[in-house]
């Protein structure tokens, strides 16, 4: 893919044109302008992975801050439906000049295969924003979506994904993204209609937390489908068949008794922290009871 600037074969050693850039770029020249970008991206991804591995809430919140501030507003690194359209077109940016973008995209795919919708839960600037809102806004403002509606509503995003793919194959209208995603907000450029729709979405998000990510995001739907390949699944125990604590704790509707719904789970780790908690999770309490004959557990209010 090298762009040879010389159209003449057998060019003498001294380039008579003397353009500001040399005739054929070396890798050092290609990498140097991108090195800061790459370094910062690696640092952010490392932070996100560490926060996930350690199941640390403070680190997760720091990750959200950098996801919103750096990945969002500073760089606008977000996976968009336009990237899926580009996959259909086989039409992506030139790799050697956009290494950070490819690292970002590659990390998203790999992390989804390894852990599921981790991208949605930690990396996506909008996902970070909506989860940060959930942390900052009062819990009593939450409107709990009835179970019956919740299950059916989560299918909307798949329908939307299919509709958008069909629409794009027919029309090649890339700009449809403006009306189905809010990620452009981090670029701070939008039409009045776009901003109005965003305001409505954010207002709904105040009461129905993570509404876009759970029910409407076509990228989340695509990553959710890829999540069927998840290598490192969330651990479940036989007690999970009857206990409902994690299910009630999960803000994403991703737990159904013993089953984790991989298309909904964004690895927020609320459940993983809960079942690692030896004071709360029945699995540990029952083991402790059998060993020491202590009371199984005192009833705790669920978050």
């Amino acid at each position, binding site marked *: 893919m090298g762009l040879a600037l010389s*159209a003449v074969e057998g060019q003498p050693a001294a380039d008579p044109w003397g353009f500001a850039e040399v005739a054929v770029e070396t890798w050092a020249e290609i990498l140097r302008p991108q090195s800061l970008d790459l370094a910062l991206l690696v640092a952010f991804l490392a932070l996100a992975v560490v926060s996930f591995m350690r199941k640390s809430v403070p680190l997760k919140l720091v990750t959200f801050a950098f996801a919103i501030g750096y990945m969002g507003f500073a760089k606008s690194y977000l996976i968009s439906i336009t990237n899926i359209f580009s996959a259909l077109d086989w039409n992506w940016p030139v790799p050697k000049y956009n290494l950070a973008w490819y690292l970002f995209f590659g990390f998203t795919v790999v992390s989804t295969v390894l852990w599921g919708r981790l991208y949605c839960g930690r990396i996506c600037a909008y996902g970070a924003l909506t989860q940060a809102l959930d942390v900052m806004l009062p819990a009593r403002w939450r409107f709990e979506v009835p179970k019956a509606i919740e299950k059916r509503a989560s299918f909307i995003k798949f329908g939307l994904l299919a509709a958008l793919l069909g629409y794009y194959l027919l029309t090649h209208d890339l700009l449809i993204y403006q009306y189905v995603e809010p990620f452009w907000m981090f670029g701070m*450029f939008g039409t009045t209609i776009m901003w109005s729709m965003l305001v409505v979405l954010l207002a709904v998000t105040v009461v129905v937390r993570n509404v876009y990510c759970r029910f409407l995001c076509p990228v989340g739907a695509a990553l959710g489908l890829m999540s069927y390949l998840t290598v490192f699944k969330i651990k479940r125990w036989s007690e999970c068949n009857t206990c409902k604590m994690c299910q009630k704790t999960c803000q994403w509707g991703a737990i159904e008794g013993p089953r984790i719904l991989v298309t909904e789970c964004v690895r927020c780790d609320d459940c993983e922290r809960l079942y690692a908690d030896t004071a709360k999770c029945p699995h540990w309490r029952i083991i402790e009871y059998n060993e020491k004959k202590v009371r199984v557990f005192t009833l705790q209010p669920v978050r």
Partner: protein
Amino acid sequence: MKRFGVLILLFSTAGIVTLAAQTKRIFTNPRPEPHFKTLFPNAVGFSAFGGTPLHYKVYGEDPKANPAAPPIGFIFWTTDVVPNERGYHGAIHFLVGMDTKGVIQNVVLDYNSEPYGYFSLDPPPFVAQFKNKSIRDPFRVGGDIAAVSRASITIASAARALRDSTRIMAKTFLTPDQVK
């Protein structure tokens, strides 16, 4: 799993078909003549589209009256000269007018499918900065090229396309002494 397999199959087929299509010339606006006035307001005649790389020659004198008249410039699509250059989503179609001294007369943005093109490439200030620009300039975004927006992948690709296509045309049809 089966669902995923079907998706993979669909993507691969679409990809192979599109890849096969890449060997052909990137399809550009077949009637660019209305833009010629913007690029060379004083020109009186243009050659047919041809040559390698594909281009139109621009004449200051009517070539029918004076067949020996030399061209005063060239008009070409960046997609013909640097077909491998792509922005965020596909090639950006610039029609460029360059004179025989290696000075860009003007640039017309004819087509792009960049998601953020509407606030980076489309607004006139972006192409306006290439008017009367020498191809010897560094074409560095953030240096002699204003990015206009933070759509960095798009703008960087546009700057590269304009830099490399004009230089390749100069190297093919001009001599180093002509380009100051």
